[in-house]
């Protein structure tokens, strides 16, 4: 990075908030390497053509978080929020596992399960979108209802059991390898790139941001607010459905009380780390992806350092509080003031100019 020698490029890069996410990932990896020097080592397993190592584990764990993070990213850009992603995940997982538990172990059954899970997620997303765009409820309350009801729906689907199933094709999605990398990560990256191209190479992204900045102005400019909101919440639920498939396929069991539990917080955190303002009006898909990678690294680090995994929420809370403080005007202006103090002679002029 620093080898380019061009100061302007580096300065430009550091203006992007997600660079701090990369820095944090590197720091965490260094911390882990200090504890165990072989932490970053990769080995090759010739039996299934897979690379094996902690970093690969992190990539695998990051895939579902990446999915919900980019969905959440678009929702937050419209100055909304989707608290139901975790519940949609568990519903998608429950639908696919319940179907596969009685279906034959064939690729066809796996694809049917995929279609079913994504179809149900689509419906839940449409419901959220309808409540927000047509009925006009606050996004936070309509998705809160879905968050409560979704887990109940999953429990009803499986009859309160943690349903397990066997299907080699479905299992391959989460545990297979292509070119030595986990399939699940490759799929996730492909979806991120596709969605990124879709919203950034067309006017869609701009229109989504317009809704978040000023709904009135967007309407005056002829942006179809209703349709866009509906599709944004549907996309978010679809992404959550994919994340639910990833999460259940890796163990081929849906844990109705823990699959996707509190992952909405992870998604929000990833989005904020990536430099998307919670006030809406702008989004950064690359940033959200890096945020998701950072969260996966943080999760693995906490466990690696021997802290109980149920304590990770506390660390995430500290990170999100710190980021919110950095985003706030009060802290920013305090920083600016301190930066401008060394140039004392021109200080008066600066104040006057401001």
């Amino acid at each position, binding site marked *: 990075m620093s080898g380019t020698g061009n100061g302007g490029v580096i300065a430009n890069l550091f203006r992007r908030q997600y660079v701090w996410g990369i820095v944090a990932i590197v720091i965490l990896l260094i911390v882990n390497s200090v504890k165990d020097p072989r932490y970053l080592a990769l080995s090759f397993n010739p039996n299934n053509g897979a690379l094996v190592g902690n970093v690969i584990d992190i990539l695998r764990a990051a895939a579902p978080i990446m999915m919900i993070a980019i969905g959440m990213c678009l929702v937050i850009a419209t100055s909304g929020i989707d608290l139901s992603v975790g519940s949609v995940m568990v519903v998608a997982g429950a639908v696919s596992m319940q179907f596969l538990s009685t279906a034959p172990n064939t690729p066809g059954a796996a694809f049917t399960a995929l279609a079913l899970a994504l179809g149900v997620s689509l419906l839940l997303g449409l419901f959220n979108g309808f409540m927000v765009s047509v009925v006009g409820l606050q996004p936070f*309350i309509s998705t809160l209802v879905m968050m*409560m*009801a979704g887990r109940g*729906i999953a429990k009803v689907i499986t009859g309160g059991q943690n349903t397990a199933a066997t299907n080699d094709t479905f299992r391959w999605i989460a545990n297979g390898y292509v070119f030595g990398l986990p399939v699940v990560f490759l799929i996730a990256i492909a979806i991120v790139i596709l969605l990124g191209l879709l919203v950034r190479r067309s006017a869609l992204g701009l229109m989504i941001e317009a809704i978040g900045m000023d709904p009135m102005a967007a309407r005056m400019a002829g942006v179809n607010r209703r349709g866009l909101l509906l599709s944004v919440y549907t996309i978010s639920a679809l992404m959550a459905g994919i994340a639910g498939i990833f999460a259940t396929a890796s163990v081929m069991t849906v844990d109705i009380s823990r699959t996707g539990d509190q992952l909405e917080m992870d998604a929000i955190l990833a989005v904020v780390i990536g430099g998307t303002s919670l006030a809406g009006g702008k989004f950064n898909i690359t940033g959200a992806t890096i945020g998701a990678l950072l969260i996966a690294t943080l999760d693995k680090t906490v466990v690696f350092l021997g802290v109980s995994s149920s304590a990770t929420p506390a660390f995430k809370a500290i990170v999100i509080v710190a980021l*919110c403080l950095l985003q706030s005007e009060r802290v920013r202006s305090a920083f600016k003031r301190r930066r401008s103090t060394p140039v004392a002679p021109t200080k008066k002029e600066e104040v006057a100019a401001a």
Partner: protein
Amino acid sequence: MSVATQTPDQVKPPLAERLRLRLDFLPTVAAVVIFVGMIIYGEAAYGRVVQMNTISNLFINNSHLIILAVGLTFVILTGGIDLSVGAVIAFTSVSGVMLINAGWNAWLVVAVMIATGGLFGLFSGVLIQYFNVQPFIATLSMMFLARGLASMLSTVPERLPEDSSILVLATQIKLIDGPKVNDLVITPGVIIAILVVAVGWFILHRTRTGRTVYAIGGSEPSAALMGLPVHATKMWVYVISGLLAGLAAVVYTTRLGIAQNITGVGWELDAIAATVIGGTLLTGGVGFVLGSVVGALVLGLMNVLITRDGGVPPEATTIITGGILLIFVLLQRAVLAKQRD
């Protein structure tokens, strides 16, 4: 509230006009009607609902929820939200029981528990008021912080000593000795909940602070222009919510005698649902403490009926709660739209 219960009974000619003026009360009236309807249905379908021990248990088992709902009413009236209450209960009860087991004076620990809750609330309040963090983000992070800290302290059930003096808060006092086990029973926990409701009602409807809370929910800039102490009041509502979460932790822990890091998962949703069902608008400015109590009792009675029915799978409880919450939010939405006409 007195008006709310009277309106449906008045069959005078200007009823429609009166109702239009009193649209604010409609959700609360609906909650009361639903509560009465549920009691009648329960009595008709399963029997043994309108009797003293069922009513006593309804209050004893939901006293913590009533306390939480009062706190949430303050917060939601200002147009904010507090998602941290359930996790705050987990942290305060786990830490409290551990302190008692470490030999601290039990009543001192009660004070510490309530103060800890207030501290979490203060932290949310500072983030929201001075750093412009959105309420649900600030309190969501407090929820994670409290839950994580509770899990760091312990992940197994922590037991209160059998002879602990604060267990007196859960002793059952017989008010009316009915036939067999059909007694009207009350615990100090219920009395605390009733006191909290009374004080909450007094503060909201009879003090300047209460008027300011309503004014902020109506329009924050207008409240500030009127010279009301907006900053201090917005901080206070989160502190109140935190303090009451600590108090609810005391009541709940003494009733059960154990505390665990997973205590109170999803209670913030129950408390929000109770408040919304009771007629407090999520946009702020409209609502009643007593309505929230009715909301909490509706949720409690729903659980009783589901248990009695036996046909409804217990898994479906959250769907029903979510459905009821949705219906009431839609009702609020309709009322607001009507008012704008």
